[in-house]
Structure formats: C-alpha cells, structure tokens
C-alpha cells in the first residue's frame, strides 16, 4: 500500500509541475518576464501578458498555502466524516487558491503595462481578459495536485495502514513546502524552453541568446500577433512535460528511498530500527546522486561530440 500511494504522489507531482510550467508560460512569469519587461523599452511593443507576481516559487507557495489552509479548515469542520471529507476539501481549497492567483495576475498585467507609459505600450483589454481564465484553470490543476500530495503525505499513516508513515508537518506547511519547490523547479527548468527558444524563435537555433538580442522578442505568431497563449501550446510539446518529469522524479525518489529505508529498517514491527532505516535512505540517495552526475556527464559529452564547437560569428 505504501508503494502504491507513493506512485500516486509521484504521478500527481508530474501533473502538477507540468501545469505549473505551462501556467507560468501563459503569463510569462519569472525569468522570461525580464524580456517581456525589456521589450517595450527597446521599442518592441507586444501583446504578451506580463504576469510579474513574483518568482514562481513564491507565487505558487501563495496559492498552494491558501488552498491548503482552506482545505484544512474544511477538514476540521467535517472531521466526523473521516477521510472522505477530502473529496470536498481539496477541490474547494484549490479553487480558492487559484482564484487568489487569478486576482494577483490581473493586477500584475495592468501594473506593469501602466509603468511602461513612456514607451507607448498600451493595455490591450482582450489580452488582459483573455488570459485570466487559462491562467486560473492551469493554476487550478497544479494547485489541486499539490494539495492532494500534501493531504496524502500528512495522512499517509491512516491511508496506507502503516503507522508512522505520515509526515508530521500540518497540511498548510506541507503545501508551502511543495509550493515553493514546484515553483523553484518550474522556473529553473521549464523557463529555458520558453526563454531560449520560444521567445527568440526568429533568432538562430542552437546558440545562446546574445546580450544584444535581449528585449528583441519574437512578437508575431504563425498568423497575426503572438499572445502568451500561443506560448503554452509550444512549450507543452517539450518544456512542460520535461519540467513535470523533474518534479515527478524528485518526489518519486525522495519518497522511494525513505520507504525503502523504512522497509529495510523493519516497518513498524518489533524489529524497528530507526537508525538503520535512516541510513539506508541516505545511502540510496547518495547512489542516486552519483548516478545523476554520471548521466549528466554522459549527456554533456554526447552533446559536445554531436553538436561540435560553436560555428558562425
């Protein structure tokens, strides 16, 4: 049972981080936002959505923590119903969380574009209204998955029947933790696909974007003028799933090594040896890290051989 729940958590983590990345691409949050912000100053008036709530980590921590708090309050009210109350509590919490997120992103767009007055960047109302719903829906999916992960982890002992498997942190604190992490991963991996590739699609492929290109974002779509909604469709091909993979793998291996350690330490039985369990978990983790370094080196070597040195100017 423990392993089954662990796989559910990893699956939810995959979905959560994928939607987190796509949501941040729809609003051009976090790092690529610097380009969207710079573009009007270079004379590149655009129709992107400028969602500068804060770094992704914090903005996801906000919506997930609010979701977790609301879910916790509902669970407290429905304590007599038992674990079934989560079916109501988690979606309602996530809905409130994504509502707050939507409100926060609406103020961002107008705030940043109004601050671009001297560069003649207008506020396009269709851009403002048209993006809010996609932002809210993508955010809802990410937040509901994170809240569900936090709920499962804080009640794992009851759900799986293995005493002591639950995480001791309360639900909102777990939501804060996973919200911060999902945002940090979403911004550090997913943004590369958007910032390097999608925002500069008219620049040469296969090279770093030079400083002189900064601000000269690609403003036209296949047909007409590009908005941020077009970005999500592109990044859903590679950037989003890869980001989801990163978070899914982290959650999977984090829980996996702990659970393996617990099993080897004699799960909740008379022979329960906490030091052995912890030590096994640490050992497995170090092995995974070493494998990762080797894999990273291999893929770097492959890229160096395959792509070769920089050609061109």
């Amino acid at each position, binding site marked *: 049972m423990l392993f089954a729940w662990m796989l559910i958590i990893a699956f939810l983590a995959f979905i959560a981080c994928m939607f987190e990345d796509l949501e941040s691409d729809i609003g051009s949050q976090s790092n690529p936002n610097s380009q969207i912000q710079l573009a009007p100053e270079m004379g590149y008036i655009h129709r992107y959505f400028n969602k500068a709530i804060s*770094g992704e980590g914090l903005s996801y921590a906000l919506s997930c923590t609010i979701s977790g708090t609301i879910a916790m309050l509902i669970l407290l009210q429905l304590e007599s119903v038992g674990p079934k109350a989560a079916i109501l509590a988690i979606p309602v919490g996530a809905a409130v969380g994504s509502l707050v997120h939507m409100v926060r992103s609406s103020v961002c767009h107008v705030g940043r574009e109004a601050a671009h007055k001297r560069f003649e960047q207008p506020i396009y109302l269709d851009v403002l209204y048209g993006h809010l719903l996609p932002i809210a829906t993508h955010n809802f999916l990410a937040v509901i998955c994170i809240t569900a992960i936090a709920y499962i982890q804080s009640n794992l002992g009851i759900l799986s029947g293995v005493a002591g498997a639950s995480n001791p942190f309360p639900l909102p604190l777990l939501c804060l933790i996973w919200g*911060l992490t999902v945002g940090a991963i979403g911004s550090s991996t997913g943004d590369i696909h958007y910032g390097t590739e999608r925002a500069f699609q008219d620049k040469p492929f296969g090279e*770093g974007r030079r400083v002189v290109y900064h601000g000269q974002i690609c403003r036209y779509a296949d047909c007409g003028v590009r908005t941020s909604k077009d970005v999500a469709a592109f990044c859903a091909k590679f950037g989003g799933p890869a980001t989801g993979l990163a978070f899914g793998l982290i959650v999977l291996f984090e829980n996996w090594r702990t659970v393996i350690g617990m099993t080897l330490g004699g799960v909740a039985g008379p022979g329960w040896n906490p030091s052995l369990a912890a030590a096994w978990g640490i050992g497995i983790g170090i092995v995974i890290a070493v494998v990762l370094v080797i894999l990273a080196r291999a893929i770097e070597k492959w890229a160096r051989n395959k792509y070769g040195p920089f050609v061109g100017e």
Partner: protein
Amino acid sequence: MIEALLLVLVCIIIGGLLSSLAVHLMPVGGAPAAMSTATGIATGCVMLMTGAAVTGLFTASTVASFWVTKPNVILVALSGAVGSMLMMGFTMFVGNLIYIFGAGIVPCSGRVAVDPITKDSQTEYKTPRTDGHGVPTASFVSGILGGFSGGFGGALIYVVLVSDSYAHFSVATAGIVAMGIFIANAIIAAYNIGGTIEGFHDPKFKARIRTGLTCSLIVSVLCGVIIVIAMLTGTLAGGVM
C-alpha cells in the same frame, strides 16, 4: 540545560554558515540563464536554494519522526542533505536536457577556459557575447555539493529545534523557524553574490566567499541568540514530537 542551549546556538550557527556556503556553491544564472546568456540554473539563488532546502526539510521531518524520542541528529541532518542534493541534481539534469534537446545548446562555462573536473576545453563551445550557457560538469558537481550543504544546514537547525533533548519545540514551530533562519542567511548570501555565479570554480567564488561567510556568521549568531532567548522563556518547549 546550559549545555543544550549552547548546543542549539552552535548548531544554528553551523546551519547558517552551511546554508550561506550552499548559496555560494549553487550554479545560478538568474534570469539571463533562461535566455541561455549565462551559465547555471535559470532562476534566482534565493528561490532555488529555498526550494532545495524545504525539500530536504520535508525528508528530514519524515526521518525525524522515525524516532519516538531523541532523534539521531547526524542521521536526520544527512537525510535532509541528501533530499536537497537530489532536488538540485534532478533540476540541473532536466535543465540540461532542455538546453540540449530543446534549444540545441552545448553546456559550457563562460568564466573559465577549461572545466576543472573533466579538463574539457570550454571556450570554443561558447556563443560569443554570452556568459556561457547550460550546466557543465563542474557546475553540476558544485550544485550537488551546494544542495548537500544547504540541506544539511537547514535540517540541522530543524532537528536541534525539534529534538526533545535540545530545544523541544513543536514540529511546526521548528519547521517554520528553521525556514526563517535559513531564508535570512540565504538572502544575505544572495546579495553577496549579486546575480550570477557558476560554482566553486568561478573566480567570483574565491573573491566573495570570505565576506559571505563573515556576514552569515554574524547573522546566524544573532538569530541563534534570539532563538535561545525564546527557548529560555521555556514557554515554547514541550511540543509533541
């Protein structure tokens, strides 16, 4: 009692110093890295380090609850360290996957001509007028070490605060206070870096690490003293493990 207080103070200082060191070891490229204009992970150090540290904190809290009383400090802190290390490792690995397969970019360092670990030459792979791109092996190893040290620091503060032989705060108090101390140290260190850094091989690392650690020492001593005052009141103790 006095021993426990001193130990908590010392552990908070060590934790703070380690988290500051961790931020200096991170290969962070900030916003330019998302445009492949700088080497490193494409986000700010504070966000990345906090994300890594709380992942470690999560594992540390699970492992600390293995023991009914008196958790083993070193083992719990190591679990946290490995948690952060894995988080950093997967993030950098998938980041590299996107650099290589999504944008066709070879990871290479912009600050050094030769990778100090693999001895690969970097200059000819670098796009002109950028500051490097991707996460090369030296930065990768540096990031793994940074994750380890940051996770160890964060989890160490957590475990001494939660352990019933030391501060004996409640789980949630210990978690959020550990986060607070960690964040204060990480942000001071991030200001010291001032933007981007590639890892231990970056010349910036050698130039700035001493200042960073001094500042972190002062901030951690103050944080530790404040927490010890909170402990001395005796009202927070007696939390449930």
